[in-house]
């Protein structure tokens, strides 16, 4: 058996994350894959998936001034 499978810190599965579950992706031959679901992809695909996840947070770059909380 090859020991080439190594956990990659700081890369969570974007599909499991969309279900609010943290699962670290494993890494083999340039591809990342999830042991909990069937997701697999390269690093660019994982990053692109993260960007899509962020899109739902429409105010993620919006500072809401204190004075505007009243009408929020």
């Amino acid at each position, binding site marked *: 058996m090859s020991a080439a499978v190594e956990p990659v810190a700081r890369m969570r599965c974007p599909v499991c994350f969309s279900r609010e579950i*943290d699962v670290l992706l494993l890494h083999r031959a340039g591809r990342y894959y999830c042991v909990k679901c069937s997701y697999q992809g390269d690093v660019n695909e994982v990053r692109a998936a993260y960007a899509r996840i*962020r899109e739902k947070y429409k*105010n993620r*770059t919006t500072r*809401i001034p204190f004075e505007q909380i009243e009408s929020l």
Partner: protein
Amino acid sequence: MILNILHRPDSPERAHLFELEQQYAHENGIRTTILLTPEALHDRDQVATALRHQSEFGDELGLSFHGLTHESIVDLVGYGQEALWLFSLDQKRAIVSALASRFREVIGTDPLSVASYHLDSSTMAIVRELMPSVVAAVAGCFEEGVRVFHGCNHSWYLFNEGMPWGPWYPSKSHTLRPARDEDDWCGIVAVPHLMRDMVLSYEGRNDFWASHPPNVMRGMGYEGEDCPYDRNLIDLFRWQEQFNDGYSYYNSFVSTAWLAEHHAIDDRPEVAQSLYRQQLEYLGKLKKEDSVNDMTMSEFATWFRSERRIGSSELYFAKELLYGSRKHYVWYLDPDQRLLIDATQSGSIGDLRPYTGAVPVATGPESEQLAVGSYPFLVQSQHRTGMQNHFQDGSRTTAILHCGGLELDLGTCPTRVGAVTRKADVTVATLEPVTASLAGTQLSITTAIEIRSGGRTRFRRTISWEGTIAEISLTERIKCAPGTTEYPERMDGVRGAIMKSIETTTDGDELAPAESSLDYGYRGRSLEAESVSAVRGEFPSVNTAVELAPADGQMWRGLVEEGHLYSPYLTLSLTRLISRDQESAVCLQLSSL
């Protein structure tokens, strides 16, 4: 707003990050409370740093009950665990005693403050006995439970749902229940581990949305090195001062592990460090403007004792910050109940914790509850369906209108909170009027919810319409399921009853209300009667009776519905006809059995 900044030095390998955190706080003029772990207490350099910061900056030194894998603990009890709540009672006692000695030995005083994500009633009693100097404790994580358990791939056994979101006086019998009075109080002022987003911590994981910048990174609620959400959340907590006699509290407790490479953050540690620094810069700016008052934990305990009476109520008007949904919730808490009003469902109660029942809970290996330290609910719409999905609805309150053979569930009518007023004896949340169409008639519905101590909540509604319809049928309803998690718990001993109006004999003597009842057996039965004085449910597992009663002097028909295995609830309903612009009122009353 009062601020506590809490730091937790642990491994010597991360001592530079502890110093970095301290530097961020001090650069911004903020004093900290340093909660030392066993590892730090055995690290001469970190102890020296902590002592220096105590004398130089006025920081407070306390004790953390975390990181108990250190060899001193293994030598003491035979093995190590991440946190105190996981050990058995005799081990807890040995550890607390040893840590008290170690603290005294290296710091030279007894600790005033301690911290644990979870400090159940039995552990709290041990702390009181073996560390009488302690006046303040981090003693729970607001709404940490089912969601985080799932989110950590079913591996984070910490269940603290149903607790106060701000500082509180823990009762002796259940740390997460606010004490009724001095006798009921455990003697320590508790603060939550982090302040949580009071919308998103209910709807999802609490550990994504909190006063903890790396937690927000975990939730991916930022972009690049910018996270305005961190500052928006601070301001929303400041904004709460108007509802609680000018008082609001905030804390942040970022351990060093979060500023290093972390398994739950898909980004560089430098970004976490930058966002934490930015949070403290903003808090430092607010301090300079006199909008924030930084204290140590024990200073806060003294302030809290003198300014907040045991038994006070607390209110949080939650507004959604991150999605831009404009959703509103109102949270209310006193020693009788904690309840959540969901304006998006026209005032449905989405979460109800009947503190009136004063259910005692201790956790630990030898306890019945094991790791589940939550205060049990009677209504929890996130864990128990809430609004109907494919079959029947689940636990919630709602009002249902009937006209011309058609039905309108007010839970489908989103609105916002128009006003919250707080008086000594009553808190009122008034929702903005909502318009809806029923059987071709345009309706305008106004809802006001009045909450009083003693576990009393009154729903007042007024319905206006144009057209020829004379009356509309209104049903007010609560659907209950006692529990602590998303899975149904046995309804053994649950009883439903209808109380008929008090009858008077020819001599004018009052007879006890006539009552018909059923014992829960998952058989889908119901009881119905005209002109009732109340519909009632009794729930032994939460030691609570719930009554829904007319509060407008009108005749209401009562209905009690037993559920079945596919709908394991007890439903209490009141129905009457109302005419245009006539106000209706029903009262939800909690009491202990």
